[in-house]
């Protein structure tokens, strides 16, 4: 453990913290400036953000609810990015997950107790299958995962739109006449996640439990297990991994399937915890947010938690900002700026690292030239 503490509290830590603080300060300052010049009050916005996300137990509950799917998606993305695979399709995988969950809960006669697990499993399977398309194309036809997952996002939207516009598929059935909207019926109450408890106005949803379990499982698996180690080897050095017996196609496919499954599961959780219906706006950027959380956390599963909560705060507090008269979109601006700001400190590190590597390379080149000349000189007398 001392090694870990040493790693956290090494000499550069203060500098890193200072860098992050400075970057975030700039991001927040710019957002404030935007509010100021358009005639709003930055302080009011900050206060509203706080009130809306952390101000009361109820709001904290809301923040957690917003963080949960983002966190689950991010955990899945961590798996692929550790294997060196860029999956930018969680948004679509989440949507398909929600769609499959809705289909199962609305159309299959699953006995009551099994309803919630069936819904969540269907969601995970749907997300996995959607990511599986990308894996198939990658290892069968060598199609870039970046491109396929990007395109599959848009196909997912149309697939959901198709389903919720067809009465024979998932479109809602209105009993009392009127025009059916492009949305599904609400899922049966059996398929809804139970509310775990309530203290005062703060509710605990079981989605939180799922996220915590997912965090522990993914966190342990990627950092501690043999499988997680192989993922990292594949991502860091495919050739060394191959020699050590890691089969890239099998492991890569597995990583993509799991990553999709987590995004799908996130969709399932949103469906049976809060949304209860599937429609095209269902994913509401949660997939993209989760992707960003994972990328900011830089492959560290534990680091996804604070980042996901930060996103949850912005998502939850955003709704509250409108009360100040400042358009709530300022939160989106702030969120994007914070993401860009979070990129800075690692880049500073990287630049330093690169300089050091160059120096070592130069020294070694000189040493090589020197040593290869040595034996010949000594021996050939």
């Amino acid at each position, binding site marked *: 453990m001392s090694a870990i503490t040493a790693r956290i509290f090494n000499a550069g830590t203060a500098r890193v913290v200072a860098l992050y603080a400075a970057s975030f300060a700039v991001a927040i300052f710019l957002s404030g400036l*935007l509010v100021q010049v358009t005639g709003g009050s930055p302080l009011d916005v900050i206060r509203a953000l706080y009130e809306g996300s952390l101000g009361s137990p109820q709001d904290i509950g809301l923040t957690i609810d917003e963080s949960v799917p983002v966190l689950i998606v991010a955990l899945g993305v961590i798996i692929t990015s550790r294997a060196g695979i860029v999956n930018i399709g969680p948004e679509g995988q989440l949507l398909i997950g929600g769609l499959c969950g809705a289909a199962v809960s609305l159309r299959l006669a699953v006995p009551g107790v099994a309803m919630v697990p069936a819904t969540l499993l269907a969601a995970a399977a749907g997300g996995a299958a959607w990511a599986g398309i990308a894996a198939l194309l990658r290892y069968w*036809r060598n199609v*870039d995962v970046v491109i396929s997952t990007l395109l599959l996002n848009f196909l997912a939207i149309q697939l959901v739109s198709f389903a919720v516009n067809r009465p024979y598929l998932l479109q809602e059935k209105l009993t009392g006449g009127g025009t059916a909207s492009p949305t599904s019926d609400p899922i049966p109450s059996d398929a809804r996640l139970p509310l775990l408890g309530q203290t005062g106005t703060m509710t605990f949803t079981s989605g939180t439990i799922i996220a915590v379990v997912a965090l522990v499982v993914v966190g342990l698996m990627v950092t501690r297990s043999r499988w997680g180690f192989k993922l990292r080897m594949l991502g860091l050095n495919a050739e060394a991994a191959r020699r050590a017996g890691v089969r890239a196609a099998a492991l890569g496919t597995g990583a993509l399937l799991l990553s999709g499954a987590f995004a799908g599961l996130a969709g399932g959780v949103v469906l049976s915890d809060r949304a209860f219906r599937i429609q095209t706006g269902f994913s509401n950027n949660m997939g993209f947010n989760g992707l960003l959380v994972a990328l900011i956390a830089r492959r560290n599963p534990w680091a996804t938690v604070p980042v996901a909560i930060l996103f949850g705060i912005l998502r939850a507090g955003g709704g509250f900002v409108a009360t100040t008269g400042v*358009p709530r*979109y300022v939160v989106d601006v*702030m969120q994007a700026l914070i993401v860009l700001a979070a*990129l800075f400190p690692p880049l500073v590190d990287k630049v330093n690292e690169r300089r050091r590597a160059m120096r070592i390379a130069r020294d070694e080149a000189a040493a090589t030239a020197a040593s290869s000349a040595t034996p010949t000189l000594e021996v050939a007398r």
Partner: protein
Amino acid sequence: MDALTTIMGSAMRQTAPLAFASCGEYTAERSGTLNISIEGMMLGGAFFGVVGTAVTDTVVGGLVLGSFVGLLVAVVHANFSHRLSANTFVVGLSLNALMLGLTSFLLESTDFSSRRAGVLEIPLLKEIPVLGEALFSNRWPFYLLVVVIPLTRFLVDRTRWGLEVRSVGEDPQAADVTGIDVNKRRRQSLYYCGLMSGLGGAYLSVAEVGLFNQNMVAGGGFLVNAAVIFGAWRLGGTLAGCLLFGTAASVQLALPALGHTITPQLLIALPYVLALATMVAFARRGRQPAALAQPFERGIA
């Protein structure tokens, strides 16, 4: 006016903004950047196109300011990705979110009323049956495509700059050895992409619609990505992709009015399916720039 003419005309209007942006994205992808911030560039271009038009009271002012804002987005993206080596997808996604948020925010907190570019009809040519109306009776900025498309082709295929851009997208190591500044060419290609995407966005708001709606690009930026893939990284194919996607969109809009009940989702999905199908068909043949989406760092090995 028969249905076909209507659809053709609408298809052209749907295609034009995509075509402007795709000229830029085509160039950027040839240099090795898979740029997913076109959406943000176009949104910026659309909003500030309206601002520019309102402030200068001329459409030209709007187009210029729109392009400039697209360029600004590109400058941020390029310097993060190809100077600081930040992950291009994180940067791209954030910039999209930023521009969507910013334009939505500004739309609500400011008030600009735009004017709309006038229709320019080309005499005689306009009389050509079916196509004439669609091609030769448009808002005047439409005809900028006649400049932009050949310009792009010329830049990429005929100039030394373009040759270097292509070499940088195919084999950055070899290009580097030959004395070409790889990341500089990639940044410049992205700047061009920003200018063109901003222009495409400004065209959308200033020329076609005459005002800015929240999220008015609505995924068009990603369609441009799909078009370049569909076109297998050829300018002609890319533009054909834009036309196909534009037509699909206009058919989808026109169908209800014509009393048809074809599935709109299939039409909207068509571009993406086609792009994927092209990838499946061509991926093995390596039609994509060999170093696409691979950051370049001079050999440390």
